[in-house]
């Protein structure tokens, strides 16, 4: 999913689904609300560096595997 106007994209939904995690479970693991996970997945909210790192850690991947800049941006 691409974040509007920033060139930032993410694979959060895909990676979360691969690990069988619900939005609620992921939200609880990184101490945010489910809505925050939802808005990040839909590209409506750009998370802070700290949250991005926490998400990557819970998913067991490097942060750039979750969040990356699209080449066309």
């Amino acid at each position, binding site marked *: 999913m691409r974040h509007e106007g920033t060139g930032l994209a993410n694979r959060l939904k895909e990676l979360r689904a691969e690990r069988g995690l619900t939005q*609620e479970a992921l939200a609880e693991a990184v*101490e945010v*609300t489910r809505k925050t996970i939802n808005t990040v997945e839909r590209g*409506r909210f750009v998370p802070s560096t700290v949250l991005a790192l926490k998400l990557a850690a819970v998913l067991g991947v490097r942060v750039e595997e979750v969040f990356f800049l699209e080449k066309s941006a």
Partner: protein
Amino acid sequence: MKTIEQYERMRRSLMTAYAATFFVWAGALTGLFVFVIEDRAVPDPVALLLLIGTVGGFLGWAASGLCLFLLGRRIGADPKARTALNDERSRQNTERAFIAGFWVLTGLAAAAIALEVGFGVVLTGKTLGLAMIWLGVTVVLSLFVVLESRDAA
């Protein structure tokens, strides 16, 4: 123990009630000041409506405020819920709501000046102050609720 999702829904519902009742209460009170206390002509039914709005709005606002306070205490006792409900997206929505409130107040002050310069209508400091509190608080609360609801969609 309620889930974070349940707390969030309760908070949003109570904030909606709080904003709506504040809008009625403070709006009617401002109306009372403008029309009745400043001794401007106003039909009796309107004055009665303003009085009912002031009393009814205040009671609703006080009740929803008390419920919000009690909910806040319950959330405060649950560290996980407290952290999650004050996460960075929620804080961003709060900041956006306050910025919108600032521009509304600036616009209102500009409108008051324009009214005086353009049409010779002078608003007293008391009336303008009440109107600023009325709109300032209502806009901030309502916009926060709208932004939170939009994120929930």
